């Protein structure tokens, strides 16, 4: 029960309280760039969830059983980014060959994910927080779901914004950022929710 409670705490924290985009500023480029339409927002964030889980499942053992025992912690940045790049490439090949329908849905977004800082950031934060393997996976899942939640909400906000007139100097990027600020403000309401429920 204690284990379950702890995992739920990590999950709720990473989805709502410490949202990967709106509180930690990881993955802002796709958040602002790909959120114009709902289906592309969903496609992009599903690909992120997928890669985040895979990347965590691969980088955590590499760090714990290969780098840390040999005193090579300082190599983690290089190793992680290469592992993620190779992983994304491999996933793309496999999907293209065996899962055509999934490839159609996610394929476009996969190459963009190598340099998505949310993925690298998530794998690094797992180690920084000294999560064990299971906790790391839950955190990766939560971060991915949080990314999706933020993207979907923001896609809704932006579709509303299309029918509104703004002052000329705010058109385009500035108003997108201001809208993101308001969405982020609404997520601040979740502060300490996880503590209230699970601690």
């Amino acid at each position: 029960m204690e284990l379950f409670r702890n995992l739920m705490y990590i999950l709720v924290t990473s989805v709502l309280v410490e949202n990967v985009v709106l509180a930690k500023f990881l993955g802002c480029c796709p958040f602002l760039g790909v959120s114009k339409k709902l289906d592309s927002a969903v496609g992009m964030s599903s690909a992120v969830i997928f890669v985040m889980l895979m990347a965590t499942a691969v980088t955590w053992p590499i760090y714990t059983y290969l780098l840390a025992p040999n005193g090579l912690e300082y190599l983690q940045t290089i190793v992680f980014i290469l592992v993620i790049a190779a992983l994304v490439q491999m996933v793309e090949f496999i999907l293209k060959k065996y899962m055509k329908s999934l490839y159609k849905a996610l394929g476009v977004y996969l190459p963009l994910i190598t340099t998505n800082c949310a993925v690298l950031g998530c794998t690094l934060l797992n180690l920084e927080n000294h999560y064990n393997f299971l906790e790391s996976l839950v955190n990766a899942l939560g971060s991915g779901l949080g990314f999706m939640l933020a993207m979907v909400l923001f896609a809704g906000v932006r579709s509303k914004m299309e029918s509104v007139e703004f002052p000329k100097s705010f058109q385009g990027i500035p108003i997108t950022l201001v809208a993101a600020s308001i969405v982020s403000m609404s997520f601040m309401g979740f502060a300490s929710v996880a503590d209230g429920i699970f601690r």
Partner: protein
Amino acid sequence: MEKSNLQILTNGIIKENPVLVLVLGTCPTLAVTTMAKNAIGMGLAATFVLLGSNIVISLLKKVIPDKVRIPCYIVVIAGFVTLLSALLQAYVPDVYSALGIFLPLIVVNCIILGRAEMFASKNSVFKSALDGIGMGIGFTFALLIIGSIREILGSGTWFGLPITVNLFSPISIFVLAPGGFLVFGCVIALLNKLSNGKAVKRKSFGCESCPNAAGCANAGKGGCE
């Protein structure tokens, strides 16, 4: 037209400022600008990596095969980031801990990869070095502006010195996440206003300057949207 060396250097500071004009590298821009001091630290760190990676990539431009160039660039950049984090940890540990996770994340900063792809892989070593310095100074400058606004409004201090004690009480939302988006948006809007819409080149977030555009099938066809 061939650009003079001075033009290359100033290009990144004003005309093609990576943050304010091209709107790249949004994540570190928003995350580390809660204090002017951190903004400078991040700016200088990125400048170091930009300079180093631009020089090395421009030296290696004939050796790196075209098909695997992006992974090669990432390895070079990651090498410099590793070097930098070791140096910072040893000599300025407080900056090291303030930048936290955003120090290793310089690897995936699209400004650095973008300059490697767009400039260093096509130009001489000297010009690439100038471009790296110019872009780095432009990045630092933009971070300093945003960092100063946020620190003054949000904490009432500037570089840690109290300056608004008697004027107003600090509005702490500016040092929190929403304030980052808000100040960044307003600074770009102000630039638009002052230049009658000419300064900010990117009108929307899209593929134009995405470092992955080369490997992305959808680039130029309405982007990833």
